[in-house]
């Protein structure tokens, strides 16, 4: 199977104290240099097959959104490399990236912040088309914009309206239409339905899947909601504190979760049957800070199966069955 995206040993860090003066702190009677670095993404690797949906799941602060933004080069990676369609794009500069920008697009989380309030829907769509010259003239761009809008379920007479005249779900449709405008091969969707009402969520998820069938692109889907992820993905990775602790096919992860954190996530999901919370035990505590990462396995402080080795050594990724990898000393 051909890969659309391969990520190897990707790292991303943010320095909280940017200036040199911020770094110097006065402590215990002397000046010391103190660094406060958020280790958002710590050495992760995964790949996405052409035409498939790969999801990254995890709780807030686990680095899943940062991973997405690093892959699409909104932020330059601090380590590792990213190969898109076989080409290394890790160190490409702005102009060299343009060719790939056309091929990778992004759908954002907040439908209220992701559209320019001062731009008409039509202009939101035609601007990227004209910029990347996917169309030869303005009138062709408009024609194409109407066509895309129809596909995502926005009527053509609504095209000259401004974003504030639409509901959240409709805005998300427009956001999807913008991503489609340049005919991408790969779309990163950063929590595209988490800000929407449930009934609208289902509409948008169906739309995204229909479009995938039609255009045959691949998705990197970022989400915290396991039931949504299960519905949409082929493969997935579970992230915790900037690490992928478990990855595999949907079948692997949902039928046979191995990592204690994955299991904890499953047991925390409220269910309509109303029995999940009552019957299961939950993990204790909260996600530690990404500034001072725990020693050894990042999960050991909350893990019910922690052994002495877990606090000392970071486990190595192990392929338990074909395509199903886990990062835990148990295996």
């Amino acid at each position, binding site marked *: 199977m051909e890969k659309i995206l391969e990520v190897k040993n990707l790292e991303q860090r943010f320095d909280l104290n940017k200036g040199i003066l911020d770094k110097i702190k006065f402590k215990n009677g002397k000046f010391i240099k103190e660094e406060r670095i958020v280790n958002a993404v710590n050495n992760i690797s995964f790949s996405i097959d052409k035409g498939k949906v790969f999801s990254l799941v995890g709780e807030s602060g686990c680095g899943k959104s940062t991973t997405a933004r690093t892959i699409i080069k909104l932020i330059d990676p601090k380590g590792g490399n990213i190969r898109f369609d076989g080409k290394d794009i890790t160190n490409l500069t702005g102009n060299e990236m343009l060719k790939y920008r056309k091929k990778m697009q992004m759908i954002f989380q907040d439908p209220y912040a992701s559209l*320019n309030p001062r731009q008409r829907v039509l202009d939101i769509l035609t601007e990227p088309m004209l910029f990347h010259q996917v169309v030869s003239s303005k009138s062709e761009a408009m024609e194409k914009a109407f066509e895309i809008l129809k596909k995502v379920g926005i009527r053509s007479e609504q095209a000259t309206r401004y974003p504030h005249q639409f509901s959240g779900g409709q805005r998300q449709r427009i956001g999807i239409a913008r991503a489609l405008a340049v005919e991408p091969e790969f779309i990163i969707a950063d929590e595209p339905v988490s800000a929407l009402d449930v009934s609208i969520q289902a509409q948008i998820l169906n739309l995204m899947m229909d479009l995938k069938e039609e255009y045959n692109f691949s998705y990197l889907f970022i989400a915290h909601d396991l039931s949504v992820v299960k519905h949409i993905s082929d493969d997935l990775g579970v992230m915790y504190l900037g690490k992928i602790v478990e990855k595999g096919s949907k079948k692997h992860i949902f039928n046979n979760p191995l990592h204690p954190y994955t299991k904890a996530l499953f047991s925390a999901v409220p269910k309509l049957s109303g029995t999940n919370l009552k019957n299961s035990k939950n993990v204790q505590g909260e996600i530690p800070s990404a500034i001072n990462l725990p020693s050894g396995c990042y999960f050991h402080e909350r893990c019910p199966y922690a052994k002495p080795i877990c606090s000392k050594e970071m486990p190595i990724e192990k392929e338990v069955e074909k395509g199903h990898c886990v990062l835990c000393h148990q295996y």
Partner: protein
Amino acid sequence: MSIQVETSNKSQEKVNKWKSFLESEFFHNYKKSPTAIIGSIIVIVVLLIAILGPFFTVQNPYDMSNIDLNNAYKPPAWDEGGEAKFFLGTDQQGRDIFSAIVYGSRVSLIIGIAGTFLASAIGIVLGLIAGYFGGKIDAIIMRIADIQLSFPTMLIAIFLMSFIGRGITNILIALSLVGWVRYARTVRGETLSVKKKEFIEATKVIGLPNFKIIFKHVLPNVFTSIIVLSTIQVGSFILTEATLSFLGLGVPVTRPSLGMLCNNGFNVLYSGLWWVSIFPGLYIMIIVFGINLLGDFLRDELNPKLK
């Protein structure tokens, strides 16, 4: 889609825009706010007087051939010895005060408005650059702004004017050099918050060049605060100019502004000719009062942070 459809769409759109403005919350609140209505009436009347005034005045005060020394020292019409023709009286040279105010207000308003445009242009560009790029360029621009803010505005203006000399152009230069700082700070702050929005990230994902992102996507979204700031700024520039001219550092004597007129009358204020400087002074007050009423309303309505 043919071109014709597009144009008919556009005129339709204009009608719709006007309609939606009349139905908007902004217009609704405007109708309910007496201060806003009074403010805008004052501003409109002042503008009309400045534009149409020369058709109604008895003389052109700049044209010396119009002026008759025999008419000098006439008090306002309601005072003893006043003439209906010179409603607000005349000055030492026989110039009609009302005519002088009308012509003077044109100078004051032009300086106030043009100065605001220049100052905002400089401030907006620098603010956008500082806010969008951040880092060193931000630090440099904002430290210059900080240094300038640590001196009183008037002091800098006086210093500049005594350095470059009188004249309308020079006044505009001085005003934009003292006025850009407020724009730069406001615009930078707004830019910092707008640039974190996802729609800006979306333009980067598309790959748009920075200048396009800044002027097409950031600028329109900081525009409301620029409008609010500008209304107040016109008023404050009119005052600054008046002060400078009053001190003899502003406009040339040949084209007196309202501040200059006050200065003219000041010399004779204690000899009983109170009207020569009081009326121009009152008119400055009315203009600035009207502008500020309108500005306050705009600030309350358009500033999302106060809502």
